[in-house]
């Protein structure tokens, strides 16, 4: 019988190393992919991957299913660790590959799993974002840059950056809302 992520997390809290290794087998590639996207360096991405799972080992009890699905939570840990390393090593985002067209269909397949809250249609909207909106969003999401830092980095007015980020995020929010008819928080807002 295949255990769910929640069951494995419970086992991890009980000190079951096999449960951690099972989650590693399930998600190490996703974690590694996100870490590599930020760091563009194999060894650094490996380090963050292992740090993510050791942090999961130490802090599995901090996951709250009421606040969201496990996979996004896990990948947020990865992204935060990677950004932290990125900053400490003073890397330059322009030294990384920008606006990479990721494996859209593969992500949609991966994220459509029963343990994920990341819906494929949302991924489609993401890939259809105009480049001018995607770029500042990626700089914020993958490199932890603030709007001010992005404006300076791209040599754009701060107001322009704010507008582009807001517009792109509005589209993602609208797409998520459109796919969540049962979402208890769904109300009309402007």
């Amino acid at each position, binding site marked *: 019988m295949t255990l769910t992520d929640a069951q494995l997390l419970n086992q991890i809290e009980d000190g079951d190393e096999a449960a951690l290794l099972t989650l590693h087998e399930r998600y190490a590639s996703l974690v590694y992919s996100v870490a590599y*996207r930020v760091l563009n360096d194999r060894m650094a991405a490996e380090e963050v991957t*292992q740090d993510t799972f050791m942090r*999961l080992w130490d802090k599995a009890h901090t996951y709250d299913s009421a606040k969201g699905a496990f996979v*996004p939570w896990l990948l947020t840990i990865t992204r935060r660790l990677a950004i932290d390393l990125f900053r400490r090593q003073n890397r330059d985002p322009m030294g990384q590959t920008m606006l990479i067209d990721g494996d859209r269909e593969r992500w949609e397949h991966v994220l459509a799993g029963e343990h994920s809250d990341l*819906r494929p249609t949302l991924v489609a909207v993401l890939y259809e974002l105009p480049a001018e909106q995607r770029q500042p969003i990626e700089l914020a999401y993958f490199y932890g840059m603030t*709007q001010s830092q992005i404006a300076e980095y791209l040599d754009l007015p701060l107001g322009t950056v704010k507008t582009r980020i807001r517009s792109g995020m509005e589209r993602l929010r609208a797409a998520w809302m459109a796919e969540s008819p049962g979402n208890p928080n769904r109300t009309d*807002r402007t």
Partner: protein
Amino acid sequence: MAHDDVIELLPAYALGALDEDERRLVEEALASDPDVRALLAEYEAGAASLVALAPLREAPEHLRADLQARLAARRAVTPPPTPLEQPRREPRWWLMAAAALVVILGAGIIAVLLLREEDEPPPVTPGMGNGASLYTELAEQDGALWYDVMPTELDPDVSGALVVSPEGDRAVIRLEDLPPLSPDEVFQLWLVDADGQRIDGGLFRQSEDDATYIEVPLAAPIDRYLRFGASLEPAGGSPFPDKPTGPGVFSVRLEEP
């Protein structure tokens, strides 16, 4: 700040892209307005898809064995359970023993990773003799800098003060009337640097004395920081290196008003 202005900041907040001042305004609104919290949850749900912009790569096969070696090394050096005073952190000699064990296991890269953990900030514990005595020492110095501890909506009774050495290289926070903690909760200190980045300052619980003293783990002079604060977290602290998961407990503003 007007409600509509806060709403406009939520998309960037969901990305973690706000500057320090705007972020603080949003967090004040989040603490008091459930509609703002609900709307933020929608933006965060949309933002979760951004991970799909990462090209998919297969994790190297050796990572599984490496993880097993890490777990084995941790198992070999973890001391017996102690009362919840500080997060589980191996003291220096345990690290050296772990490194030796790892060499025996033939996983040299793990030794590097374990020793690197010494770079992490030390845990902050309440009622340390050093905290209270250092506070007294700094308070008596001419030219010491003082800042007020400001409570949050979590508990308006929290009070205290931050004292900083005249050189700006040592600081202690004195806290009174911290809210009670359950056995599975802990406070986590956060430092916000001049770039607006949050840094984990360690975990602490309230002292059994009238006041709790926390020596702030400064890695730079005080003028390199914007503020300090603390959040209420589950035991072991936030799973994220730079982001609290629980409500704010207090804050200390350092910049000039």
